[in-house]
């Protein structure tokens, strides 16, 4: 089986390094970061933290070098999906492509370039420490299912899920993956921007009762938008939020959006709170707090361009 990880940041690296442990899987890692690519090819891709892994995927920044692949796993930031998939689509002419990205709307973007698409959601998290080296902060499950308008065959989805699971990334193949996806987007939209605005880790956000109530209000808006589409969440995002706040889980985790804000990088706010708000508008479900949080984070992004 040949699998290409498209976007080998923190989450992409978790898949690339673990899948590269398997004898029957050939892993390619496509990433725009040349220093990261060169480091992977020179010294391997190292994970440390929740588990210590050294994998040897073949890394490249040149899409033309990619061979035909059975599977793609897209793990770019949501705003880079279009560009990354446009560049790599030729490698997936006969393959299936899964999104394991944050937010809503990535599968639609992938389906514009690829015929067989897998809706995916993943919970593991980490951060890039140095080129070729990723800190694995949190372990977690991945769920894959057909993207309804351009579905991949369930047998193929099961094959990819089995490979990930054997590699140490527990993955479930399901018929309807929208529940886990909305559970995660509601989780992310309710917590990531709050961390990004306040500078607090996930645990710190949750232990402040007033702030935790704000998180719940954001969750409630997301649940209403999911319910209006007939999506059944596979679990309550509130439980996920409290679970992640435990000291042994993700208390000290800085949400990726906080990492982005600290680095002055564009955030995924448009695909999280913006995604919930967009579906809310289409369905006539008001989302005033998600709108407010999105405006604040967009304001933070705009502040970086201000003369001082």
């Amino acid at each position, binding site marked *: 089986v040949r699998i290409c990880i498209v976007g080998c940041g923190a989450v992409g690296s978790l898949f690339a390094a673990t899948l590269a442990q398997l004898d029957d899987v050939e892993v390619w890692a496509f990433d725009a970061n040349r220093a990261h690519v060169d480091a992977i090819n020179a010294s391997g891709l190292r994970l440390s933290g929740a588990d210590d892994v050294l994998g040897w995927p073949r890394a490249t920044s040149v899409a033309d070098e990619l061979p035909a692949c059975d599977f793609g796993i897209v793990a770019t930031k949501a705003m880079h999906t279009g560009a990354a998939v446009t560049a790599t689509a030729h490698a997936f002419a006969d393959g299936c492509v899964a999104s394991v990205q944050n937010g809503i709307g990535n599968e639609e973007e992938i389906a514009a370039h690829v015929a067989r698409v897998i809706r995916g959601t993943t919970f593991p998290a980490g951060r890039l420490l140095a080129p070729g080296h990723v800190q694995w902060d949190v372990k977690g499950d991945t769920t894959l299912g057909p993207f309804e308008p351009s579905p991949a065959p369930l047998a193929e989805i099961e094959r990819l899920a089995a490979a990930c699971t054997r590699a140490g990334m527990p993955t479930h193949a399901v018929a309807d993956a929208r529940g886990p996806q909305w559970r995660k987007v509601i989780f992310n939209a309710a917590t990531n921007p709050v961390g990004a605005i306040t500078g607090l880790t996930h645990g710190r956000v949750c232990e*402040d009762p007033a702030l935790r109530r704000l998180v719940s209000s954001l969750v409630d808006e997301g649940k209403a938008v999911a319910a209006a589409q007939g999506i059944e969440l596979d679990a309550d995002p509130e439980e996920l939020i409290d679970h992640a706040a435990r000291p042994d889980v993700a208390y000290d985790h800085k949400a990726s959006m906080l990492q982005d804000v600290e680095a*002055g990088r564009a955030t995924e706010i448009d695909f999280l709170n913006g995604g919930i708000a967009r579906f809310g508008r289409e369905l006539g479900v008001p989302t005033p707090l998600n*709108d407010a949080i999105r405006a604040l984070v967009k304001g933070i992004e705009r502040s970086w361009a*201000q003369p001082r």
Partner: protein
Amino acid sequence: VIERVCVVGAGTIGSLCAAHLSRVAEVAVLARRPEQAAAIERDGLRISGKSEFVARLHATDDPAQLPPADLVIIATKAHAVDAAAARLAGRFPGAAVMTIQNGLGTEEVVRRHGDWPIVSAVTFMSGTRRSDAHVEYELDTATWMGPYAGTGTPFELVQEIDELFRRSGLHSEALRDLLPAQWSKVIFNATVNAVAALTDLPHNRLFAERNDPADLGHLVHGLVEEGKRIAAAAGVRLRDDPWEMNVRAVTRGETGMSDYAHVPSMLEDVRHRQRTEVDFISGALVREAERCGVEAPLHTALWRLVRALERSWELSPAQEPS
């Protein structure tokens, strides 16, 4: 007749008041830090920008050293009023006390410490402190003042203070009922200051932009509308529409400088990692909403976020963005 004034707090607003008023009255300043009192005693209080002069006045950090006064102006940050008024308890019999903080509620705090007649004021002037004894005067906009309801403060007293302010070169206006002005300002501040503090944006054109659904102007407008609903429930008719105040401030540029954008005091506090006045601004509005039984989800959210931001500095004082 007001001939002697004591200004408590030598931050930007206190310094601007003290320096200007020293041109028409005997002024003493009560500073919190002895170094600052000494600097003002030694060098005088220098004002630059909209006015250019050095005021010679008496400054001390010891309330016992203050000469008698006819008017005491408390110009500390809102959260420091309680401690400041406690230091004045038992002093200044016969004087009037004027509060000039952002937000709502500091008059009540003062009243707990003495039975002085209280004058409420809100000010739109602003500046930047360059040193302990030098303030840059940036916006020479008005200070509005009125009798604090319930303390029997005569309006004639307010008119006299207004007259004193005008003669000193400051802009002011005496109002029989300050509440409409005070509420216009608290809604404006709860909106603009909190958004600025959370985004690190000075008060610029983005605050009035409402094209794309994610534009900041929608949030600003939503906050203003929520504030107006609270005012209506509290039975207060606003003097100025806070949304129009916002649009005016960012489009015309009250300084006449086309690309000038004011840095609200709450953003200034955040940039210096100093405690903000959010409890007296957003917090006051949310408490009024609760009292009147109306919802305030947006102001509640911003209040919680600013409080959490303050808390993040306590948790990681040395943490800087990498």
